[in-house]
């Protein structure tokens, strides 16, 4: 009776473990470029940003000092920055409800069409694909006080055309209008996707229950079922609106007299026109804080969208 010769322990483990270990190594290798880029593009810069924000670095300066939180104190006392924050929030306050509600309205109407649906989808989505700089320029011309079609229509009613982009009180709403113009089609598509997930027999059950009118159908079925989508669209639109930059850069450059100064443009000016890089870094950190709050809200909304029974 021979005792079975045990296989050398080493060879079993290496034979079983090695493929797994090899795979783990391969995985790490595959992820390496991404990891390196992640470090270079996101991680390191953010640390640098925080570091910068605690200095008074200016481009081309001879010496730099650490100043702790002085930049942040300055930011919250700075009338220009505060104005840009206020303007940005005002901009969001106009664009957000309008783009969400209009997007929803258009989606509801388009969803019910059968033959003309494709046509409307194209028409409303065109602005989304176009280059905003170019179209903003066109809008500028459309709103031209003498040469544009808006002016022509108002002339027909014997009214003067306001200077949309040069009058301080009108600038922000006008920019908001252009922002809404580009956002409605996008929101419409998101809402259409949400509407298509509502099961048809829910509407039929509602019809049998007596909820056949448009108002009842909307209140009982459509609006509740769209809840997560609506929340999601709202947060996404808020983020997009908060990051407004292009229209300001091309049409008003923050003017007249700061009436259209927005956060990103203010940061851009501080960093790349005035070269107050330390200060601009602090402003960027504040901007980042807002963005993170929005992003958390978005993650929460996205999660609910996916898990809604």
């Amino acid at each position, binding site marked *: 009776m021979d005792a079975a010769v045990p296989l050398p322990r080493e060879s079993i483990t290496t034979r079983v473990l090695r493929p797994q270990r090899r795979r783990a190594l391969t995985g790490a290798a595959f992820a390496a470029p*991404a990891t390196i880029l*992640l470090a270079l*593009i996101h991680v390191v*810069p953010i640390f640098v940003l925080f570091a910068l924000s605690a200095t008074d670095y200016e481009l081309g300066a001879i010496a730099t000092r650490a100043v702790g939180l002085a930049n942040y104190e300055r930011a919250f006392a700075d009338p220009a920055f505060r104005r840009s924050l206020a303007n940005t929030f005002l901009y969001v306050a106009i664009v957000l409800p309008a783009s969400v509600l209009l997007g929803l309205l258009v989606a509801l109407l*388009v969803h019910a069409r059968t033959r003309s649906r494709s046509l409307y989808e194209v028409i409303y989505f065109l602005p989304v*694909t176009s280059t905003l700089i170019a179209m903003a320029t066109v809008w500028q011309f459309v709103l031209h006080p003498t040469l544009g079609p808006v002016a022509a229509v108002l002339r027909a009613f014997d009214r003067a055309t306001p200077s949309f982009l040069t009058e301080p009180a009108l600038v922000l709403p006008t920019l908001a209008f252009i922002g809404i113009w580009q956002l409605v089609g996008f929101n419409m598509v998101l809402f259409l996707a949400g509407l298509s997930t509502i099961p048809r027999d829910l509407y039929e059950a509602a019809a049998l229950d007596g909820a056949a009118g448009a108002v009842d159908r909307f209140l009982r079925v459509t609006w509740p079922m769209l809840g997560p989508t609506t929340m999601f669209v709202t947060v996404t639109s808020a983020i997009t609106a908060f990051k407004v930059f292009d229209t300001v850069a091309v049409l008003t450059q923050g003017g007249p007299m700061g009436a259209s100064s927005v956060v990103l443009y203010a940061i851009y000016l501080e960093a790349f026109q005035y070269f107050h890089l330390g200060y601009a870094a602090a402003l960027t950190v504040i901007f980042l804080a807002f963005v993170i709050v929005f992003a958390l809200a978005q993650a929460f909304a996205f999660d609910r969208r996916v898990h809604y029974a």
Partner: protein
Amino acid sequence: MRPGRLLAQLAAHAVLVAGGVAMVLPFWWMLLTAFRPAEEIFTGGIALFPERFHGLANFEQALTSAPLLRFMLNGVIVCAGILVVQLAVAIPAAYALAKLPFTGTRLLFGCVVGAIAIPIQVPALPLYLAFAELRLLNTYFALMFPFFLSVFAIFLLRQVFKQYPDEIIQAARLDGAGEFEIVWRFVVPAAAPAIAAFSIFSIVAHWNDLYWPLIVITETRLAPPPLGMLFFRDAETGSNYGALMAGATMITAPLVLAFLVARRRFIQGITMTGLK
């Protein structure tokens, strides 16, 4: 019930058409002006078509005052370059996160998710300083570099790859295929729709990006379309609206035409920012 329904339908169409007019108005005005001679621009009011068709004169003028074609070429180069590297980096990384766990997988994925929230404007400052220091401003590389990593692509593709059946991968491994081959020969083709949709999202986003090019590029010859438009506007100060609109038409045309051709994919791709 019938007359009520008819009224409702008409009302719906009325609203949609009114909104549609607002949507299309600038496009129509842009095209109208681009094909109008200067006198008509200043005297003519609203019209559906130009009274005197000015041919391509405005377009020629636009092309001479700024290198619009160059701008578009830059757009193509930059978007293509970005997309190629994005996919080359993201696909293996997403596959590793989905199917090849290693120590640090969770940490990496956490960083990926966190980085999705960070818009380009945040690292812009430090990156600019780095490029300035390395004398790499005003290069294609500077234009493309920050976008080489698309955390969004990694996130999206990881999700798609996760759904790829493990059994097929195991069978392939048994057949002797290496991981590299598995990724590119088996998994990627299956994920083609998602990759296509992402590609469109990437191209549109970077074709239309202004902030970063504005920071790193000052030379006209390197400007991508939006920055080019800005330069073009400055060159075209004064009242040559015909040329201005012609320029705007040319800058906007590529994406709009692409959209009209590949509508479904476009909408799919762009709404992925929504999913973002």
